[in-house]
């Protein structure tokens, strides 16, 4: 069997054990057997490719909004009687919970919020505390890009909003640096990031069709 012939039939047989004249050819032909080994290596490595990243918080925000608008979510109603005060538990903004959870991977707040990893993906705490955050999609569009996406008449408002939230993030970060044990300081930082996410979310809502 010649190489050309073998490579012609290869797509059909590569997923099985080689037999008969194909096996014989592989035994005697180094270049074809290397080819097969390369292709299998590629396929095996591909199988090990894990998730490539996270969608930005706006995706969940949009899904939730659509679900509410379509009446698929029935929000819980509290009965209109005296309630025993509950211990603090719920998140401030349902629609921002994924944002906060994702944001929690950023910088100083990571130590505080050991988020559960998604299936099969080990969460390397050490790695995340020392490196700057991995680039994420739309949420990481830098401020300039966001301003470019926003309609011109609103640009000044958004620039002002971004300036405001960025300053608040710096303030909160500084405070946390000075008081690393202070839970409240962490809350302020996370809230500042949430507000920044709000700016992005509002901007994105406008730019989407």
């Amino acid at each position, binding site marked *: 069997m010649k*190489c*050309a012939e073998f*490579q012609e039939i*290869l*797509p059909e047989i*590569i997923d099985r054990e080689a037999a008969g004249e194909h096996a014989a050819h592989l035994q005697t032909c*180094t*270049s074809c057997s*290397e080819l097969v*080994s*390369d*292709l299998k290596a*590629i396929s095996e*490595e*591909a*199988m*090990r*490719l*894990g*998730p*490539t*990243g*996270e*969608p*930005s918080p*706006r*995706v*969940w925000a*949009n899904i*939730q909004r*659509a*679900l509410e608008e379509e009446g*698929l*979510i*029935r*929000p819980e109603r509290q009965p209109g009687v005296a309630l025993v005060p509950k211990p603090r*538990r*719920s*998140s*401030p*903004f*349902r629609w921002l*919970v*994924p944002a*906060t*959870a994702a944001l*929690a991977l950023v910088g100083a707040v990571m130590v505080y*919020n050991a*988020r*559960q990893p*998604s*299936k099969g*993906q080990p969460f390397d705490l050490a790695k995340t505390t020392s490196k700057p955050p991995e680039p994420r*999609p*739309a949420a990481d569009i830098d401020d300039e890009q966001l301003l470019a996406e926003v309609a011109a008449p609103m640009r000044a408002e958004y620039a002002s909003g971004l300036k405001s939230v960025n300053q608040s993030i710096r303030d909160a970060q500084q405070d946390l640096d000075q008081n690393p044990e202070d839970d409240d300081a962490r*809350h302020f930082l*996370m*809230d500042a990031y*949430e507000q920044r996410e709000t700016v992005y979310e509002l901007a994105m809502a406008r730019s*989407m069709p």
Partner: protein
Amino acid sequence: MTGATKKQNERLPEAEAIERAKQGDAEAFQVLYDMHRRRVYSLCLRMTTNTAEAEDLTQEAFLQLFRKIATFRGESAFSTWLHRMAVNVVLMQLRKKGLQVVPLDDTTDGNEEEAPKKDFGAQDPALAGSIDRIRLEKAVESLPPGYRTIFVLHDVEGYEHNEIAEIVGCSIGNSKSQLHKARMKLRELLKTSRAEKATKP
């Protein structure tokens, strides 16, 4: 503010989340989203190589899923169902854009797909053991769309040829030959990038 940590210890198991989602429980939808969003997003991103589009498709896939959740009867794994839906959403999008999802013809007859060069005994060493994930991801990203679709579905996502044939609407033989071409092209790309890396100071 409490600072919004998700209720880690109270996370619902999937089966229960599905039941509750059918009743319209907002938190259940969110749990299902959180469980599966990375994989769905990755699938969309690998097939479109565009983060904004991948996000829109992720959103659409989950919305379709949530709209139909009442009809899920647990016959197959939930994640399988969701991924099928995501694949269909992506393919529909690719079709809408006029991109040929898979070239119908086996032979390269001047369409946009670049035929990988046939190999008759190259001298450079085997790839096995030297493929790193980042280079592979980059190489996949630069595959022509038709090759990339089949490769992602088969080698990354683990669909079988008969499933791909059904989802994509081609023949099993076509699926196999496109997969082969994709892998050949990747081999070329990986060898090239490895050679480039070796020559850098």
